[in-house]
């Protein structure tokens, strides 16, 4: 199993097993010997699953797709931290070189009332889709746009909007938050569009609708612990939450200004 560096370690995996959202789950322990440190964390799970299948056991279900840190699908809660010990990376970009020989690694699904477990480590994050559907867009039908360069956008605004738009919708912010709040996710989309001229027309409605939907989905409130920012693999800034609050207060106070 050695990679190019030739280095291997032995670790013990304690992984959450849960058949579906209605049944109770429990931890299962698997020793993993000779793990190449060049492996990604998910590749280590591939090896584990290969073994479980060969032994006639049920492999561990987990969500993953692009394995390059951009699709937002992978979602493991590793040693008490969403996406594990490294700052600024998703689970798929975490490599075994971040662990030591002899480590015990505890792996759980995202835990939040608004993210029910599908199976083992896979959870249902469709609440995020519904939040976007409630207002995370600019209402522009195909074919209605004017020439792209007729909208001038100051570079700083464009850059800030881009930084907010870099959110991958993985839900680590919710998993990290003791309140299970989705404020960082919601604020990233609200900020992106509030910073751009294209987003101005629907600015008030957008923030009111998205916050309303967020509450309906059962996400908790924000108490400014900033755990979301610390764990976000894409470095989405807490400033976005401040902007969300400003947008929300402004929209609430002036909702009848039309």
């Amino acid at each position: 199993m050695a990679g190019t560096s030739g280095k291997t370690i032995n670790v013990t995996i304690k992984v959450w097993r849960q058949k579906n959202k209605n049944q109770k789950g429990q931890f299962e322990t698997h020793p993993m010997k000779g793990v190449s440190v060049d492996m990604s964390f998910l590749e280590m799970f591939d090896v584990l699953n290969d073994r479980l299948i060969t032994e006639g056991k049920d492999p561990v279900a987990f969500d993953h797709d692009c394995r390059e840190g951009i699709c937002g699908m992978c979602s493991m809660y590793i040693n008490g931290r969403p996406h594990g010990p490294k700052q600024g990376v998703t689970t798929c970009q975490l490599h075994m070189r971040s662990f030591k020989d002899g480590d015990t690694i505890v792996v759980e699904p995202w835990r939040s009332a608004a993210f029910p477990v599908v199976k083992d480590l896979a959870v249902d994050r469709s609440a995020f889709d519904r939040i976007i559907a409630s207002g995370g867009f600019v209402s522009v039908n195909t074919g209605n746009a004017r020439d792209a360069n007729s909208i001038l956008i100051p570079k700083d605004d464009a850059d800030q909007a881009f930084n907010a738009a870099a959110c991958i919708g993985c839900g680590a912010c919710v998993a990290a938050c003791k309140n299970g709040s989705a404020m960082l996710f919601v604020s990233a989309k609200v900020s992106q569009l509030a910073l751009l001229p294209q987003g101005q027309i629907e600015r008030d409605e957008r923030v009111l609708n998205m916050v309303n939907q967020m509450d309906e989905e059962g996400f908790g409130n924000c108490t400014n612990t900033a755990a979301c920012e610390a764990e976000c693999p894409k470095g989405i800034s807490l400033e976005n939450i401040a902007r969300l609050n400003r947008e929300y207060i402004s929209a609430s106070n002036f909702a009848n200004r039309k």
Partner: protein
Amino acid sequence: MATSPKLDSKIPDGPLDQKWTKYRSTVALVNPANKRNLEVIVVGSGLAGASAAASLAEMGYKVKVFCFQDSPRRAHSIAAQGGINAAKNYQNDGDSIYRLFYDTIKGGDYRSREANVHRLSEVSGSIIDQCVAQGVPFAREYGGLLSNRSFGGTQVQRTFYAAGQTGQQLLLGAYSALQRQVGMGAVKLYARHEMLDVVNIDGKCQGIIARHSVTGQLERHFGHAVLLCTGGYGNVFFLSTNAMGSNVTAAWKAHKKGAFFSNPCYTQIHPTCIPVSGEHQSKLTLMSESLRNDGRIWVPKNKADAEAIRAGKLDPNNLKEDDRDYYLERRYPAFGNLVPRDVASRAAKERCDAGFGVNGTGQAVYLDFAFNMKYKYGKIEATKKGIENPTEAQLDEFGHAVIKEKYGNLFDMYAQITGVDPYKNPMQIYPAVHYTMGGLWVDYNLMTTVPGLYALGEANFSDHGANRLGASALMQGLADGYFVIPYTIGSYLSKEISTKAISLDHEAFVKAEQDVQERINKLLSIKGTKTVDYFHKRLGKVIWDKCGMARNAEGLKWAIEEVRRIREEFWKDVRVPGEANEFNPELEKAGRVADFIELGELMCKDALERNESCGGHFREEYQAADGEAERDDENFAYVAAWELKEVGNWELHKEELVYENIKIAKRSYK
């Protein structure tokens, strides 16, 4: 050669630059009241699927969207890095619709349809307008205007980008448009659903069978038309830059129900990917082509140096300029490091095969930013700051900041995966499977050979010929979804207005569901000794070795037999754990790999049939003395469209490629 009567491309008459305009003005329309009664199924939610679904719903059609991921935003378009082309000529550097058209045809090695490519070029500008209107945060200049950069195979700057995350930003734009329609009730979303068959009734595609991944329930869905926007088949190679879930299943099921599959041997091997690190590797990671704007590709000039580097005895940073071979700049002075992907990939393979590769396996070349970081950007920044004689350290520092802003996320990703800092050391790269130009045959309307069944984006074969230029996949996906299908679907649906929704108890639905169920039962009942991945890896190795960057008749013949053996063993000895009626990712994977195996055979067959080298298809028997590809326009200027008779048995139909506007010529980047 004459085009097969079974392939009517329906290209409109008239001069090339007026075909699309005239078509749009004369195509049959569906009135708003009738649109409300017409249901369209969209499978796949990437750029093509999301943009098509949103646009069709905006027009008033009833739309259902299916994706296998947990959210439509996960589709693999999200991972596209570098950019999207458009003939805007914002840089005043001589770009035009014709030039983008010409570059694309030439880049595709004269194996794509003129009319389709010209249309793509024509709508390219509108895509950028649409995306900006949605709030896609493209990179901008200080004056507030959009920024552009260069990509391979072109000499203008026409690529729009959002750092190294252009695909993500474009997909999130299309996804937001889609979700807006979901919120308005115009689109019904079926996430975690995998399409497992199409249902044809009265010679038309009228629905699908889908499996809900969480419950395992099979579902029947009716549609007046079905759009497959399901991406490419690069994962046939096991190792590719595709997402783990990317698969050919939807397209392959359609193929088995009558849709012809075109040019499966045209696969794109991308030159700049992170090299394989070990046998545990599950996927490969692309380093965007945009890096070739500033990265210079080289290997040592002397074998002894290459050996010393491989043995870890020589630091490449210390190798003198004169001892480096910038082989792309040497061989292709006009385009240098920005030659098209197929050319760059083969050149890397050639150097590595000749013994000049630079990592432990000898399968890597350098992509080096040091020169431009210091002497291009470092100097510019120093000049800006008024420093006349900057020190090396200053140049390094200034250049570092510029490179970080341009490519920061890519450099971070590289460091993360390899554990090596690319600001201090040249990147090691090697070609990897990235994109597939082949796909379901479609006519000008994007309809397959099955009426009512369409293929959009990477899932079809139409626009890129034998090689796709960088930053053109995003363009094509969005062109098909936003600006082509909304018009062309009318030519079919206008005749379907009196077709009533078909009962889901119709025998065709019942039979299709039964077949799907039986296949699932079969996969679960084999209970063999080998995992799905075992077969997938074996298949991937055969296809990579014999139908990868270089192919020859002997190898292909062997590969066809070997793939057949793999198929046989798979159906005897695969072990799929779990049950049908639960969340079972291994079962999903098994179904996909079974389809990849069947496709793998067809890829080799197609490659064997095409006795020429063109684009991504390089047959070793057909090369010039200098190693350049030799096309055979007299005998092979056609689209291969394969009709499946039964598994392992196909009939080839040919669509002749007629060039009326471009003089077909040897493709040279020298």
